[in-house]
């Protein structure tokens, strides 16, 4: 196949590109310039597409003897990922920018351009298994990235190659070291790549300004304080609420209402939900017959829970959870899996969480 290897400068994409070359594919390396304010040097484990990262990616491409180019996708990234991230928080939701980047940049803008230029697919260093069009969790549960790929459609997955899904991160580093790549010991990246200091709240405050509003305790119905901006809160959040309540029970964020900027908090039992409604779903393969039983993962790194999936009247999904869950935030993706211990849990598709609450039957009983 003719492949575009998306090379971030990290160890995963380096090894993915190497494995693609070694498998006999015709590979061209591409580093994506995404950041609007490019940093010269990487700061610790944060940030991406600095000049240093671009250099690291180029070094590996040169060792592999493959062509290497930098594609400037900063405008698309700003519109589709950064602006979306800010707008979602402004609307009281909690977005996942990595998922959005895979959906709109890597497997849309990059894949479309690759296909137009005569390539068959994009190879990346994502930790997920992909074979015969089936997307599954990585063998390395700590590094599994299937959650942020769950939004990809069959058409997008047909243009994706993930060589690392069947190996652990440790093995990836070994392969890099065996090949003599300096990135073998480069730290993993964490956090959000376009917030180089890691201070998401500060980033949002700079973008959105101070937007004070009330904090209301659902347990008592009373206003118990004010906040500097609803964008500083996420559903299910417990720490840093900045208010004190009469009883000693911990409080959690239950809801964010962007127009009145009201942040509602409540007790643990009030924060738990057992029904989730999503927007229009996407599917990684053929549309399944509804309803069906599956597992759902409600945010990155969360443990999956059993659920019953049915179609809601608005075209979204209704997920009835087998166990009550805390911290189900609108804006996050509810990714559906068919459990498969042997070959890896199969990703079926996903819907964006619109709201979560108590199942009516439960409330009545």
């Amino acid at each position, binding site marked *: 196949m003719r492949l575009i290897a998306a090379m971030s400068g990290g160890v995963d994409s380096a090894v993915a590109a190497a494995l693609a070359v070694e498998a006999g594919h015709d590979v061209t390396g591409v*580093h994506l*310039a995404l950041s609007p304010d490019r940093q010269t040097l990487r700061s610790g484990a944060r940030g991406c597409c600095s000049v240093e990262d671009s250099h690291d990616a180029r070094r590996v491409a040169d060792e592999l003897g493959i*062509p290497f180019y*930098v*594609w*400037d996708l900063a405008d698309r990234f700003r519109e589709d990922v950064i602006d979306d991230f800010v707008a979602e928080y402004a609307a009281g939701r909690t977005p996942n920018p990595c998922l959005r980047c895979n959906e709109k940049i890597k497997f849309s803008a990059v894949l479309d*351009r690759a296909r137009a230029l005569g390539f068959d697919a994009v190879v990346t260093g994502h930790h997920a298994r992909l074979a015969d069009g089936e997307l599954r969790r990585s063998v390395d549960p700590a590094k599994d990235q299937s959650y942020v790929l769950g939004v990809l459609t069959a058409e997008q997955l047909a243009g994706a190659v993930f060589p690392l899904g069947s190996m652990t991160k440790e093995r990836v580093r070994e392969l890099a070291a065996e090949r003599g790549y300096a990135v073998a010991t480069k730290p993993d990246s964490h956090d959000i790549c376009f917030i180089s200091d890691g201070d998401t709240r500060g980033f949002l405050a700079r973008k959105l300004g101070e937007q004070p509003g009330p904090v209301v305790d659902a347990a008592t119905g009373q206003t118990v304080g004010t906040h500097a901006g609803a964008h500083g809160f996420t559903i299910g959040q417990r720490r840093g609420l900045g208010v004190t309540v009469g009883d000693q029970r911990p409080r959690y964020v239950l809801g964010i209402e962007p127009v009145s900027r009201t942040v509602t908090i409540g007790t643990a039992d009030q924060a738990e939900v057992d029904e989730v409604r999503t927007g229009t779903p996407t599917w990684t393969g053929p549309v399944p017959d509804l309803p069906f039983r599956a597992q759902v993962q409600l945010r990155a790194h969360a443990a999956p829970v059993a659920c019953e999936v049915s179609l809601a009247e608005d075209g979204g999904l209704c997920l009835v959870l087998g166990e009550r869950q805390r911290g189900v935030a609108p804006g996050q993706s509810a990714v559906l899996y068919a459990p498969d211990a042997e070959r890896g849990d199969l990703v079926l598709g996903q819907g964006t969480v619109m709201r979560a609450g108590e199942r009516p039957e439960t409330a009545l009983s």
Partner: protein
Amino acid sequence: MTYLDHAATTPMLPVALAAMTEQLARVGNASSLHASGREARRVAEQSRERLAAALGARPSEVLFTGGGTEGDNLAVKGLYWARRTADQGRRRIVASPAEHHAVLDSVEWLEKHEGAEVTWLRVEPTGRVTADALADALGDGGDVALATVMWANNEIGAVSDLTALAAVAHEVAVPLHTDAVQAIGQSPLDFAASGVDALTMTGHKVGGPMGAGALLLRRDAECTPLLHGGGQERDVRSGTLDVAAIVGLAAATHATVADRAERTARVAALRDRLVAGVVTEVPDAQLNGPPLDDVVAGGPGRLPGNAHLSFPGAEGDALLMLLDARGIECSTGSACSAGVARPSHVLLAAGADPARARSSLRFSLGHTSTDADVDALLEVIGPVVERARRAGTGRR
């Protein structure tokens, strides 16, 4: 492999390679007083005389440098500092916005850190700077530290009339520097006859080694050093002379100047065929820079090996990638340090819109170019442009 990027670097001439290789095997620091040192000095000074003769300079006007970037930095900063030191009122730099970054960034650094004021010259749509534009910018020249205008543009090949520009500058007693990196061996060039005060050249654009060049500096031009130390080069530039590189530099410069007329006629004919062929294959391709048969000061108005074309609706970096995959090597304008393609500042300075600047490619021919190179490009350019257009511009 079809190499159409001679303006980036051109293969070493066999005479330069042989001379340099021979010298590399010899020991001797040209500053040493013993026999080995004297022999190294003899070879270095012979090379200085040879280089000076080829370019119409006196040997004492040749300062060996580490290449074009150093020559440009030394001339721009050194002339600025010396002139400002002599008269604090002289802080203005008059420069073309189509210069190489070695000049542009030096000028902007002086503006940011050394109190310089900058007047950017008007550039013709061809990329050329006229004597009228320079005269307008200089005014009475009383507050001007220096003017700098390149002899020939590295991207779109425009040659300016430096003799006329030097006359204008000298009327108001302003020293003129020229970056002639692309012009040596391409345009008729005589340092003394041109009247310019400082001229930058480098080895690897003329079939010599990388990392070696020269600044030709008139003996009456005051220039503050960038590199302090042993004072080897007229106390304006310090550093142990790289004798082998200097030998290669002089041999290449001598050879490229000697066969200029015959070689450039052949290369220009190839270039003309390339441009005509590309326009046949891609009828809406646009030539950037001066017309192919342009004349300035009795010589070619465009570098003989330069073809710079825009392909509307296609991105330059997509074109480059597709050509690279087919074994054809050319260049887009400049890229930032991380490798992100940028619209050519030269085309923008010449008044082109950003879309035209982004859709451009430079093909540059040189002493090893053949008809087969042109044929190889013409065979693939049509389908390559068509495919790049399908990939679009990536913008909305």
